[in-house]
């Protein structure tokens, strides 16, 4: 029984069956990669997990509880964090403030009226956010206006923000897209470290096979809305069906 159990999920957009009969089980403390051609429905599946979309059929259980019908923030409070394909950060806020918000969300829940306290006097939050920035190698950008960072930095910040919430399941939608090789390698290390040290389960969508094969313990290949195969990385690499549908000659 995995921490995340997806059963028979289907989703239709108008005339397009984006997902059908998706079954997926993500084991606790594993790194589970979801790969597949463009338009296979990977992001759609992710959206169904976090409450952005409601699947037409099937069920999604996280840690024994159904996530369906819950709002995104409720699902997040259950322990699922998500990194978006195009970075979603608080552009008007500084990097430090961006990092503090998830810390508050973790400590205080979905809503708390703390209108009089001084934000900076919340020692535990400030320390945690600073530590996280150091972990993300962004301490020097602390007071920067986050909207004016380059895209790679934005993505790193977003990952950091998700980690600061200490989620139990981290969902990443192409976290290294557009990242320089050096940073990609750093991110791989970081994610490895996360899954080893923080006991966070990771589900990752990625087209960069270098990243996928460096991280994943388990891979699901999605094609045209249904899982094609699910297997260990080595087997996937050799699978002719996968090669044809997805990997091409290069892998």
């Amino acid at each position: 029984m995995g921490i995340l159990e997806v059963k028979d999920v289907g989703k239709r957009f108008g005339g397009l069956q984006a997902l059908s009969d998706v079954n997926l089980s993500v084991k606790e403390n594993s790194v589970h990669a979801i790969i597949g051609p463009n338009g296979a429905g990977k992001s759609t599946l992710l959206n169904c997990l976090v409450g952005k979309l409601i699947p037409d059929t099937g069920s999604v259980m996280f840690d024994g509880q159904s996530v369906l019908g819950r709002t995104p923030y409720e699902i997040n409070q259950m322990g699922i964090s998500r990194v978006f394909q195009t970075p979603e950060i608080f552009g008007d806020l500084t990097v430090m403030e961006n990092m503090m918000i998830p810390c508050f969300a973790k400590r205080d829940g979905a809503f708390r009226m703390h209108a009089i306290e001084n934000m900076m006097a919340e020692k535990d939050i400030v320390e945690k956010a600073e530590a996280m920035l150091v972990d993300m190698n962004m301490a020097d950008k602390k007071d920067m206006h986050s909207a004016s960072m380059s895209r790679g930095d934005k993505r790193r910040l977003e990952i950091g923000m998700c980690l600061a919430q200490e989620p139990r399941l981290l969902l990443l939608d192409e976290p290294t897209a557009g990242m320089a090789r050096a940073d990609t390698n750093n991110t791989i290390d970081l994610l490895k470290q996360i899954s080893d040290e923080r006991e966070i389960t990771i589900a990752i969508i990625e087209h960069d096979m270098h990243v996928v094969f460096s991280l994943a313990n388990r891979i699901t290949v999605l094609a045209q809305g249904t899982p094609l195969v699910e297997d260990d990385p080595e087997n996937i690499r050799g699978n002719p069906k996968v090669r044809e549908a997805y990997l091409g000659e290069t892998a």
Partner: protein
Amino acid sequence: MLGLNKKDTSLMIVVAILALFAPFILNPFPEGSAMAQFNAGYPDLMQRFVIFGIFAIGFNILFGLTGYLSFGHAAFLGIGSYSVVWMYKLLDYNVIWGLPLAIITSGLFALLIGYVSLRRSGIYFSILTLAFAQMSFNLAYSVLTPITNGETGLQVYTDDAQVLLGANEATSPHLFGIVMNSSAKLDLGPWSFTFNNGYYFCAIILLLVFYLAIRIFRSPFGMMLRAIKSNQTRLNYTGLNPRPYALAAFVISGMYAGLAGGLMAAMDPLAGAERMQWTASGEVVLMTILGGTGTLIGPVLGAGFIKYFENIFSKINDNILHQWFAFLPDGLEDFVVFIIHPFIGKGWHLTLGILFMLVVIFLPGGLVEGGQRIKRALSRKKDADAAKTEPAE
């Protein structure tokens, strides 16, 4: 100090000094001089500066932080006023009954209106708030006349209940006997300064609520509000529910508006329906933007700016112009008066409109940005001076 950082403390001190010494600061010109026309240091206007400052500070907590643009805040202003006058009518002229009630009723109304309106965002939200406020205004003006006294405005009549009214009690608003409309005058040479009880009462309240606003701005709550403005999607996916935060901000700013409305009635025991009209809601929007949205002091400046024009420029007439320019040769005098004439007196709207445009074109951040630019120019000059002197050392 008081849990504020250095910058905020000095801002607070500056505001406190400005507020407490306003009777001097606003009356820079000697009585009877030609420029005395520009003096603003009389009780009514000083009270208005402060009251509308409070209104705008509260509005800015909603608009400046969350970005939700309410076009119906005047409704709360009106509700605050009606609450206070009703307390005069039922109990007595002590403002201590009415003001808390004003805050509570406007808070409740804000809760209701905000709860409904915040289901939508952007312009849809603005129009919902506008619709609620206009409904309140239209009803208060006519159908609800038994409660609001309609067009005439709610006021105290001698046959009102006033159950607490003591035999020797003042028959105008007061706080435990401190009568709001009584003043002390100080004459220094040609200068004359007025110290009005009501003004100081309002000023102290302003300082309190300004302090509260700083605390809110610097609080985690304030940061959440800014996060709402910045990216609601991210907020949702960070496990935070934007709705109660926005609603809390709406209610707080509604209470500020209610307090401001209550104070208006505390200074002048009358509550008119037009306080709830959309133009009044629009005015506070303009004040906030003009001063500098999202800044602490901006809304107060914006409020002062608009009220100054409304009360000082509208009173300048051709006669006064002729007095000012009497030193010019006759033809030239008439010409100058002719040129200035469209902008003063009944033309004060024109001047105001032009100034709105100039400010927003040249100072995108509002009056506060103007201040910052001056400061920067000065410090740059200082730097330049310093640079010049360096080689000499």
